[in-house]
């Protein structure tokens, strides 16, 4: 029974991906891409990774959809572009590559164990009960730390390309319709609650910094989309401090172990250390993702005029 479900998910994933690539209209491709993200999060639940399913549903389907739709609104001038020619010239090499990669799968050893046993062996040292959080914030702390750095660099890059010092100034006007305000009132407290719950859950069950940060970020983006002024009230210095807090806090705590003549990124008080880093990382991820979505559109007069003439 599960096998049939897996097959259906796999086939629809492949079918939707093919449609995304081959469909003429960009708008249709983006809507299909959001569908693709939701299907992928179904696949993650089938593969017993609820953490990734949450992150994928919020990021792959939610934030990426908002970003792409927004970009399409300001960028697309020509609808219905003809599909490129050269179909076979490009398709056959890709098919060949797919065949080669599929061939390698047949050589995966059946008794392959992975790193699971090693992680569960070392798990008691971290005083955490959930292995994914332990891997993220302890065993592979470098990954998470540098990932916070990547987020920060992306925000800085966007600011550089826009030649702007702050992310503010791109606030949408408040909508006249009551439904937008109503949905904010209803959903935002719930989203903050769910974000906090996921963060708290991370120590012993699926949840943690990434999922909580992503959920909070989607709440912030919703607030921005509805034209609520509260995000603009945050002073831009605070905004920047929150943005770098995860990266800097991680660095300070990681190098504080050097004072005790221990190795970089080792820690005597494992659980406190990990939870502190987790909370700072959550805030940082949320604020960085919000700024990436907020900062992307350069909503100047020319753009709006272009869009008006288009519609």
């Amino acid at each position: 029974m599960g096998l049939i479900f897996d097959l259906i998910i796999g086939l629809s994933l492949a079918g939707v991906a093919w449609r995304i690539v081959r469909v003429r209209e960009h708008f249709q491709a983006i809507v299909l891409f959001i569908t693709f993200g939701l299907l992928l999060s179904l696949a993650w639940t089938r593969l017993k990774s609820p953490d990734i399913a949450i992150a994928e549903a919020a990021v792959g389907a939610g934030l990426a959809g908002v970003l792409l739709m927004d970009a399409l609104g300001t960028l697309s001038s020509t609808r219905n572009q003809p599909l490129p020619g050269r179909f076979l010239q490009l398709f056959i090499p890709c098919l060949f590559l797919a065949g080669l990669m599929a061939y390698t799968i047949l050589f995966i050893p059946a008794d392959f164990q992975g790193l699971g046993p090693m992680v569960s062996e070392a798990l008691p040292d971290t005083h955490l009960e959930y292995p994914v959080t332990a891997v993220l914030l302890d065993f592979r702390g470098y990954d998470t730390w540098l990932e916070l750095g990547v987020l920060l660099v992306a925000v800085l890059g966007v600011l550089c390309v826009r030649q702007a010092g702050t992310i503010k100034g791109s606030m949408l006007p408040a909508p006249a319709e009551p439904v937008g305000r109503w949905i904010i009132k209803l959903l935002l407290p719930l989203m903050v609650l769910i974000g906090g719950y996921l963060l708290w859950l991370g120590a012993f069950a699926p949840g943690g910094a990434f999922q909580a940060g992503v959920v909070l970020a989607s709440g912030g983006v919703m607030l921005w989309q509805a034209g609520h002024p509260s995000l603009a009230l945050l002073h831009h210095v605070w905004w920047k401090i929150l943005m770098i807090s995860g990266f800097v806090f991680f660095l300070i705590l990681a190098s504080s172990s050097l004072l005790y003549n221990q190795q970089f990124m080792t820690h005597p008080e494992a659980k406190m250390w990990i939870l502190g880093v987790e909370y700072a990382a959550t805030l940082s991820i949320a604020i960085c993702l919000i700024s990436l979505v907020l900062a992307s559109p350069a909503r100047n007069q020319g753009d709006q005029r272009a869009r008006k003439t288009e519609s």
Partner: protein
Amino acid sequence: MMSIYEILSILFCLIGGFFFLAGTLGLIRFPDTYCRLHALTKADNLGLGFIVIGLIFVSGSVPEVIKLSLIWFLALVGSSSACYFIGNHIHLLSKVRENRNGPDI
């Protein structure tokens, strides 16, 4: 031998599946966007409601029941407001088109 709760759960899930099927059929077969929105939001919310009721029968604890009902509530809020936004957008768009050459959405 199945308990009465399991039988009820299967029954409700099947009813929910039927409504989902009807909603999808409407989405594919209905002529214009308003009708499609109608089919999608009404039938699918009803279907989700029946499936949630079906799952409540076999759920083990009170927090699970609360979470399931919360999912249904959030889906209701999300789909109704998304329906409003899409409908509003289509309405504005058709007004613009009427000025040019008449509606064809």
